[in-house]
């Protein structure tokens, strides 16, 4: 009865080899770190433009996309990069220290957002009207770290009439960063100084017509830029992936531009 045993053993070896080969050949998933509740950028349902970009990158790189969901609070990159749990972060500021960043795929600006019926066109940071209007700015993190427009206002002594909206807001509501825009639409504030993609997307869907104008001067006091370039971030130890992503971003430039346009992202040249 030795031969059946040998055959069995052989079959087991073949099966193990096949399994190993399959595991080896199977494309590794592209692990994306994203916020589950932060439209227009990303959400768990995959409805944001960063979700769509991740899907495009996965398709081009022939790797299935898998998400690690992480609320994009302060320390998002630090917390998620620490464990080496993600291959990429689809929307980070170009040149961010902790990651290697791709060629930027868009450049946007903070916007003055007002109601279309408020007659508040032509605002700049030096406009005297900003001293009496009710203003809203975005603030980062638990300690209320300041966004560039918040710096720009406070260094002009415009403080009392400014309300801060936490960028990451109340996570029980959908897309918490939109609170500042809702406040403009509801006339709770007159002017919101809001990062372009968020403002542009909200304005597209708002039942109230909103006016969007870039915040100028774009480089306030030579220290606080209102314009930023946005890249795909990858681990610093993964130059091959970075190169592959750069190649896809270049090849699919027209499609990505259309995607951003669909989401109302204000782009600056």
């Amino acid at each position, binding site marked *: 009865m030795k031969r059946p045993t040998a055959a069995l053993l052989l079959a087991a070896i073949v099966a193990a080899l096949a399994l190993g080969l399959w595991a080896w050949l199977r494309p590794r998933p592209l692990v994306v770190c994203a916020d589950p509740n932060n439209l227009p950028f990303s959400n768990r349902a995959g409805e944001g433009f960063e979700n769509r970009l991740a899907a495009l990158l996965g398709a081009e790189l022939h790797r299935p996309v898998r998400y690690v969901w992480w609320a994009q609070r302060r320390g998002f990159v630090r917390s998620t990069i620490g464990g080496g749990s993600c291959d990429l972060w689809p929307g980070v500021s170009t040149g961010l220290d902790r990651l290697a960043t791709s060629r930027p795929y868009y450049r946007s600006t903070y916007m003055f957002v007002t109601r279309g019926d408020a007659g508040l066109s032509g605002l700049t940071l030096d406009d005297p009207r900003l001293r009496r209007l009710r203003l809203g700015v975005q603030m980062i993190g638990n300690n209320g770290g300041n966004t560039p427009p918040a710096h720009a206002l406070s260094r002009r002594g415009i403080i009392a009439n400014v309300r801060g909206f936490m960028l990451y807001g109340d996570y029980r509501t959908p897309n918490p960063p939109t609170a500042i825009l809702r406040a403009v639409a509801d006339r709770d504030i007159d002017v919101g100084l809001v990062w372009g993609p968020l403002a542009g997307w909200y304005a597209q869907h708002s039942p109230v017509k909103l006016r969007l104008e870039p915040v100028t001067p774009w*480089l306030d006091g030579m220290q606080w830029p209102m314009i930023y*370039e946005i890249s795909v971030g990858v681990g610093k130890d993964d130059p091959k992936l970075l190169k592959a992503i750069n190649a896809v971003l270049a090849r699919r430039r027209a499609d990505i531009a259309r995607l951003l346009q669909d989401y109302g992202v204000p782009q600056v040249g």
Partner: protein
Amino acid sequence: MTSAARWVRSLPAAIAALLLASCQAGGRGNDRVFVSNEQANVVHVLDGLSGRIEATLKTGARPRGLALSPDGRTLYVAASNANRIEAWDARSLRHVRDFASGSDPERFALSPDGRTIVAANEDHSAVSFIDVASGRLVREVRVGPQPEGIGISPDGKLVIATSEAASTAHFIDAETGRMLDSILVGSRPREVLFLKGGREAWVSSEQRGTISVFDAGNRRIIRAIDLAAAFPELDTPQAVEMEITRDGRRAFVAMGRGNQVAEIDPVSYRVVRAFATGERTWGISLSPDDHRLYAASGLSGTVTIVDLVDNRVALTVTLGGKPWTTEAAPR
């Protein structure tokens, strides 16, 4: 390991390179090469042809940017951590003067008439204008965070300063200090090169590996030279210091962690060839006759001498420490 220990450790290599160099080349060149070494706190003085180490100048802490007076007689050294720019006699090798430059001077440039030093104060978001005759700091212009590259147009009227952290090129009127424009460029802009009689200004972006080509007249970016596209095999193609030959025909760019120096045709904007250098090549300069190029590589602690007549790497001199940049003066 302390810098001193590293220094001692690299000594035998330096001596070996020196012996080798003297065997190979024999003769003395018509120029001297100054190499700032930000870790060893010295400026090395090499013979341009043989690479022989002729002297070592002890400078203030963290020497980085170098420049020569228009007559080639005075070498200026930015001692960043000593907050001063030192003047050295390029022939006698004597330390002749210090200029209070404002804090943390990194790169700087001399006006074409040699009368003004314009320095980037890296930790202070400012550009300082220093009058050479009186040694006085005559003007400070506020710019974006971490200013680095400084270029002055050949007519002396326009200063371009880059802000590394704001990815910006600032256009400053040299006479009044007025800020004319601030334009976004690729991330981590490092240096400014005027060419074509001042009609064009090139701004290198280390991180993006590109050079933004400006029409200096209307301050518009008219094109980008893309080193990532030109060197698809490189993982980290970068663009740092740039040089152009006196006849304006050959431009060169140090490629940082790309470990090469690329030659660019200023007419077609195409990469013509590349020379292998040491690791992390930031600073380059040309010999006064444009026959040689000297590239400083910080991580390998070397200077590569490139023969631009035969277009080949002539020799590598090991110095240790972290060579930052080079300047060559006629003897």
